[in-house]
């Protein structure tokens, strides 16, 4: 599979916004396009080739890709993360060969969180021997300590980490940097470079009266305990202080421990809360009570135990310089009763491992200072990334820094300038032109099956259940293949204007002063112009689109077709194949006499390919396309009709029996109708 061969548009050097938005530049569009074509294994490999933690990422990534997805303009973004999860859950890659350790240098990595794991993964693939030192007894860092199991089952972490280990990465648990090992000991052991990815383990606390009372606990330790034991010591009335994602996780986790009541006190108003709407909605949906725009004044207690929180009404959270600097109304006190108060107000670093080490610089907020491109600290051979650098990061941001540091370490050790093209700054394909939105068919998002809310609170099992194959493919088929659609070769274009005139989405243009056509990022990849261009100047940028050619070749090279008579090639529209849950049955039923060549829209198929099928040995060709009312591209029927009529004429001119070439427009490519059509055709061909 050649997925790196996507032709770039030299005029604009654009990339799909989903890819640009991703901290690790995950090839979102391309794995989605592979899923849309049912090429799952390749899709998995593509994801894995850039992402060391696909299963975890597919569940808890904050998916900035979806925020930027151009489908936002037409209805809702593609469920990019859920599609990744679908791949991670259902596919895996056998590593046949452990990468050879090409180089003698050994690298030490501190912390088995996303940043450390990513650095180790990439360094191993580059040919280095890596050892991760982790103070916990399990890998995953905050993913394991903090992220609740109902959002991220631990199997997902384990699978991903297992894979990294297979690359030759060694993990030494229960080993704390600063106590068990030090800069000096590592140097002595012969490590040539160190990557520090220790994250932010300390939970911040409040400087108010009553924080020392019994029943006042910190968010992450609370989560950690529940995540590892399934239990925690809490009372009947729980109050979480904080309005971010951690607060939501704490509240929802607390709910599952069955207290009478769980509330959240947040400085921010509902709109200002520093987490996603989705998280807040899920929390409220599950029963959490929100108190917005209230700040903690003091924790009330009795007999050394917390009994509630006295709050003040918030004037503003951010001052005029937009800095976090909350102010309150005097005399606005009120009390929220609680016997357990969880502080979820942010994390801080534990830098004790730096003791005796003066060169590495530390910021005022306790993070490490690094070179922004190489991630090396001021101490030679020592690199850092992840939350310990970011302060408040996400798992993909952490992985991105780990990956970049890995490459920098390699370049430093080898004295090379190896580059990862994906980090190049590319502009994102701009939003769909407003006038074009109406021309693009709205395709509704696939719903994620979830556990019912009654059942959820009885356990810590995953709430989102994952896509079925059909749902995944349908969801993937919504993707507009941004930035990888049709492309005009200036050397071949003769400026005939055909593409300009026939594109249903009015994308191609010959700009004033130009002599050749130009197709911008709004191309929907219908392929009509690719087929009609008389100069064959238009091709797809993406190498994933073969317009049926390779599929046909492969189908007819299959040794099992030897002697099969009649042998029918069915060109069908893949968009129409996922509206019924029967695709596999159909394929099995049709298997003997009919080979199927699926294409995303038959408007991409050149009539010559139908001739080619006969040339390569087919006895019949059956074209089944969707009717206009179900056509993904809205109106391809007319074009397909013209081309098949034209082909039929050519074939009859060659003296071929008309029964050998049939075209049908049907509403589903996998229902009973297609079976009947195929079986009839088989019968007819038997009689010729």
């Amino acid at each position, binding site marked *: 599979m050649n997925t790196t061969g996507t032709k770039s548009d030299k005029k604009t050097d654009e990339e799909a916004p989903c890819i640009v938005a991703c901290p690790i530049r995950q090839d979102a569009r391309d794995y989605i396009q592979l899923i849309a074509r049912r090429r799952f294994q390749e899709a998995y490999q593509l994801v894995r080739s850039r992402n060391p933690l696909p299963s975890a990422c597919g569940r808890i990534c904050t998916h900035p890709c979806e925020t930027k997805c151009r489908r936002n303009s037409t209805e809702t973004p593609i469920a990019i993360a859920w599609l990744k999860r679908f791949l991670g859950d259902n596919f895996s890659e056998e590593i046949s060969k452990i990468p050879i350790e090409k180089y003698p240098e050994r690298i030490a990595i501190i912390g088995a969180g996303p940043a450390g794991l990513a650095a180790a993964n990439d360094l191993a693939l580059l040919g280095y021997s890596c050892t991760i030192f982790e103070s916990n007894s399990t890998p995953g860092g905050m993913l394991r300590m903090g992220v609740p199991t109902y959002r991220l089952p631990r199997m997902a972490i384990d699978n991903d980490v297992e894979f990294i280990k297979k690359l030759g990465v060694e993990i030494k648990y229960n080993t704390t940097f600063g106590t068990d090992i030090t800069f000096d000991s590592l140097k002595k052991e012969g490590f040539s470079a160190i990557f520090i990815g220790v994250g932010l383990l300390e939970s911040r606390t409040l400087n108010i009266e009553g924080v020392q009372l019994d029943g006042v606990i910190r968010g992450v330790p609370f989560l950690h305990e529940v995540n590892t034991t399934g239990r925690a010591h809490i009372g009947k009335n729980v109050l979480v202080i904080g309005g971010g994602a951690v607060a939501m996780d704490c509240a929802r986790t607390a709910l599952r421990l069955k207290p009478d009541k769980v509330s959240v006190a947040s400085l921010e108003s509902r709109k200002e809360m520093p987490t996603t709407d989705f998280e807040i909605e899920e929390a409220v949906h599950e029963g959490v009570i929100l108190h917005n725009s209230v700040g903690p004044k003091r924790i009330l207690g009795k007999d050394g135990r917390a009994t509630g929180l006295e709050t003040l009404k918030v004037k503003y959270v951010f001052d005029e310089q937009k800095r976090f600097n909350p102010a309150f109304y005097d005399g606005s006190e009120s009390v929220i009763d609680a016997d357990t108060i969880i502080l979820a107000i942010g994390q801080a670093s534990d830098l004790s491992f730096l003791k005796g080490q003066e060169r590495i610089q530390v910021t005022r907020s306790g993070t490490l200072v690094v070179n922004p491109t190489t991630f090396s600290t001021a101490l030679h051979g020592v690199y850092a990334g992840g939350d310990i650098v970011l302060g408040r990061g996400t798992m993909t941001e952490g992985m991105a820094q780990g990956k970049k540091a890995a490459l920098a370490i390699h370049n430093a050790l080898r004295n090379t300038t190896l580059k990862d093209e994906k980090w190049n700054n590319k502009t994102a394909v701009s939003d769909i032109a407003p006038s074009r939105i109406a021309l693009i068919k709205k395709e509704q998002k696939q719903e994620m099956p979830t556990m019912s809310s009654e059942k959820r609170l009885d356990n810590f099992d995953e709430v989102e259940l994952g896509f079925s194959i059909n749902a995944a493919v349908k969801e993937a088929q919504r993707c507009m293949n941004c930035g990888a659609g049709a492309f005009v070769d200036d050397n*071949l274009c*003769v*400026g*005939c*204007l*055909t593409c300009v*005139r*026939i594109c249903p989405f009015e994308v191609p243009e010959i700009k004033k002063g130009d002599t050749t056509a130009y197709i911008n990022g709004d191309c929907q990849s219908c392929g009509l112009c690719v*087929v*009609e*261009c*008389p*100069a*064959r100047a238009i091709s797809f940028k993406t190498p994933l689109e073969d317009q049926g050619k390779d599929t046909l070749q492969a189908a007819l090279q299959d040794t099992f077709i030897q002697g099969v008579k009649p042998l029918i090639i069915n060109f069908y529209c893949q968009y129409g194949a996922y509206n019924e849950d029967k695709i596999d049955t159909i394929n099995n039923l049709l298997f003997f006499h009919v080979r199927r060549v699926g294409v995303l829209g038959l408007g991409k198929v*050149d*009539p*010559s390919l139908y*001739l*080619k099928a*006969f*040339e390569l040995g087919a006895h019949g060709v059956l074209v089944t396309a969707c009717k206009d009312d179900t056509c993904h591209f809205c109106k391809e029927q007319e074009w397909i009709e013209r081309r098949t009529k034209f082909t039929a004429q*050519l074939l009859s*001119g*060659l*003296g*071929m029996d008309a029964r050998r070439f049939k075209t049908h427009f049907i509403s589903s490519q996998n229902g009973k109708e297609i079976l009947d059509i195929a079986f009839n055709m088989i019968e007819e061909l038997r009689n010729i």
Partner: protein
Amino acid sequence: MIVAASKPFQEIKQMLSEFRKICVLGCGSCVTICHTGGEKQVAELAAQLRLSAKLEGRQIEVKEDSTLRQCEWEFIDNIREVIEDCDAVLSIACGVGVQYMAEKFPKIRIFPGVNTTFMGGPTEQGIFWERCAGCGNCILATTGGLCPVSRCAKSLMNGPCGGSQNGRCEVSQETPCVWNQIYDQLDTQQLLKTMETIVPPKDWTTGAENHPRKMVLEHLVVKKQIN
């Protein structure tokens, strides 16, 4: 541009029936634009030839190639290797290109794959109309920019004839009467008076009736053999 129409496949098949190694050769200019001689058509014709041979149980090899303009010695020289490796070439360039090929490669049989039809352009996608007859003595200045030589069925100089009705030509309901158009155009330009003058018989010495015609640009002639 020059507009050419595809020849019926039966005719092409007949012409090429005795050859085993054939090159279908496109031309990257006018005929590409009118969708009958470009790379797409090359591929289509080649596929047809291969399939037709297969159906008849014949072994043939069909190559596909194209060049920017078959009516230039240098451009066809670029593909010499491909051409000289074949028994026959199906050129889907206009008649000019076919002849250049025939002159350049006297040992190879060159066949025309299109019928060169007229000089014109697409009035809408997929519809082409004749616009110029190459009379060599352009009169558009007096006819509102519309050519009666190529667009009037009878090449009238003092039209419209008595068959012009509802803006249509007597010869075909599909054809606009160009003289009616000329009348409207001159009317818009307030030049109807021009139509009152008798246009004398046209001097056809420069026209197709006096072929072969030749043009010499003295200032550009160099004494270098290009063929």
